[in-house]
């Protein structure tokens, strides 16, 4: 794939930004200021980054409980996200949603469900709406291997195939659903990698390679825009941290430390950074500048969140119904 150096740097920077945000949340989580269950995206940054780089601002994304990366890659405001994690009125969901329920209407993120598999039909329905309105917008659904256990996935994909909906299903196979490995829940490869290939564009790719993710997503998105129907992309990756919370909150004994280590060695951010340095798409100065900028942005977002007002009891009854 022939990407410009600038495009490569953008991919790298987006991944780095997601990584640094996750790390900061992790390192501050035990202070108990973020009273919200956080599901960190460390290790999976290439997926949200690569897919969202293939999208327009008016394309839709639908995500899940592990949504920080998707929200940020699609253009979400970091301040509004951090304020949401600090349960503040300035949060993207005004403190009513928390970490699992991010929203960013301006960038086509209409809200995040924490019911596993819940977002899959919703993203499909957004695709239906775009098709019915003859818009060339595309709807992307991010979900985990756990969500691919759910019937909603198969029911939605069938409907999307039936109607040739402009939907791209991105399954992030990070090896685990809480403490259950994928191979104890799935009997081999997903059925959509076989059998439906005449109707469905399907691919199983290395989810830690942002360029490959982008390239594959571009094919799927173009297909969708041309009215040729849905795609299914399985991105193989790894959940480096525990299911929720910070490192020390991950229970011991359910997975092999060597497995974690092996995937740490394949860290998508480090690997891509090394690749760009080797290609001279990136130099030490640009790297240092990006780190400084990102760090300052994170400082500012945390400060904004901490200084923001908390919702009060008087806010409790707002927004049950739309005016």
């Amino acid at each position, binding site marked *: 794939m022939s990407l410009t150096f600038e495009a490569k740097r953008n991919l790298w920077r987006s991944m780095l930004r997601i990584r640094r945000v996750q790390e900061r949340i992790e390192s501050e989580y035990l202070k*108990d200021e973020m*009273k*919200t*269950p956080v599901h960190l995206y460390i290790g999976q940054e290439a997926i949200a980054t690569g897919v969202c780089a293939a999208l327009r601002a008016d394309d839709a994304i639908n995500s899940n409980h592990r949504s920080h990366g998707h929200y940020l890659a699609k253009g979400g405001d970091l301040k509004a996200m951090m304020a949401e994690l600090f*349960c*503040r009125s300035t949060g993207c*969901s005004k*403190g*009513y*949603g*928390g*970490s*699992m*329920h991010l929203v960013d209407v301006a960038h086509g993120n209409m809200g995040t*469900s*924490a*019911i*596993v*598999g*819940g977002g899959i039909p919703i993203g499909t329905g957004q695709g239906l709406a775009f098709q019915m309105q003859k818009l060339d917008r595309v709807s992307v659904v991010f979900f985990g291997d*756990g*969500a691919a*256990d*759910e*019937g909603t996935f198969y029911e939605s994909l069938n409907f999307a195939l039936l109607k040739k909906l402009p939907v791209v299903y991105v399954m992030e196979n990070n090896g685990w*659903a*809480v*403490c*259950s490995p994928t191979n*104890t*829940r*799935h009997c081999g490869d997903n059925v959509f990698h076989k059998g439906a290939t005449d109707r469905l564009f399907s691919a199983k790719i290395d989810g830690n390679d942002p360029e490959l993710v982008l390239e594959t997503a571009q094919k799927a998105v173009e297909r969708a825009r041309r009215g040729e129907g849905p795609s299914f992309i399985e991105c193989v990756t790894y959940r480096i941290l525990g299911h*929720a*919370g910070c490192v020390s909150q991950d*229970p*011991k*004994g*359910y997975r092999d430390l060597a497995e974690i280590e092996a995937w740490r060695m394949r860290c998508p951010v480090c690997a891509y950074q090394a690749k760009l340095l080797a290609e001279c798409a990136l130099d030490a100065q640009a790297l240092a500048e990006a780190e400084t900028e990102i760090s300052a942005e994170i400082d500012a977002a945390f400060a904004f969140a901490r200084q923001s007002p*908390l*919702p*009060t*009891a008087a*806010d*409790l*009854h707002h927004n*049950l119904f739309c005016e």
Partner: protein
Amino acid sequence: MPWSRIKPDTNEPEFLSQDMHGSATRGLAASEPDFQRGGPTGRRISYGEATNEALSQALSLDPRVFVMGQGVDDPSGMFGATKNLHLTYGRERVFDTPLAETALSGIAVGAALGGMRPVYFHNRPDFLLLAMDQLVNHAAKWHYMFGGAASVPLVFWACVGRGWGSAAQHSQALQGLFMHVPGLKLVMPSTCYDAKGLMLAAIADNNPVLIIDHRMNFKQRGIVPEEPYTVPLGKGVIRRNGRDVTVVAVSHLVTEAFLAAQELAGEGIEAEIIDPRTLRPLDEELILSSVARTGRLVVCDTGWKTGGVTAEIAALVAEKGFGSLRAPIARVANPDLPTPAGYTLEQAYYIGKDDIRRAIVNTVRGQEA
């Protein structure tokens, strides 16, 4: 999530003796050593241990029993309820499942029809909504719809979450929805003793039984006999005697109501605390006879107010006990809103001891109090 900071581990209050038949026999004096209160073999154990012991005994006593659910073999083992059971009984009988709640609920129904006794752990009631079709359209109907020809002996279990931004999809107390469904038994334990005895009773029952537990209950420690025993479904219990007002509370609100009543005893109000333990079948007799003595009723539930448990129990008493009422019935329930995530909003949202106390005082002394 740091549950220890949401609610510390506590011993259960000194309830009236938790007699197996639900009658209000007095417990031993508070000065007696702990171990005597639950009978000669009772020990003080945690709520999770009590539930775990019930499952373990059911698994060892009946080869038809098996335990399934997403995460039952996790290191934390469903807040301790299923912890390490797979090591003792093997993964054939205690197994992790794909997330697929809809199909797996049907698979549990099918396994029950096929001669097994499944116990399906769902973690949170919110996820039970995916099981609703099999539970409501199928399991609850099967015995009746076929004129008694077949039965579905299964247990579904889910635990209400609360706090730390659990938010709208991880904290719903949906007993009101399930109480509506004929053919489904609905259990809500509040003590360690009952967690064990009701679980064993639910597994022994030949009908679909749903146990809705509460995360707060899992912070309790109580006296539990070691041997297997059952607490009968459909029998409530009086947790505290009182002449002035009947307070019906479910799940962890039993403790909250009890503590409110203890406080008010110092102010001359004696509240009778009733724990129905099962909402379906409901121990109507126990509630009505208490209201007949006290003339007043406060109903407390962890779910929403409209169309829920408090509405049903209030309607029951209005219908069958109207003659004994000397004051309007009061209800203490969560406001009719999705659960907000933020802690300041959670604080405003959840009800507890002080809300119950206020309702009791208003009911006994009139609104001006």
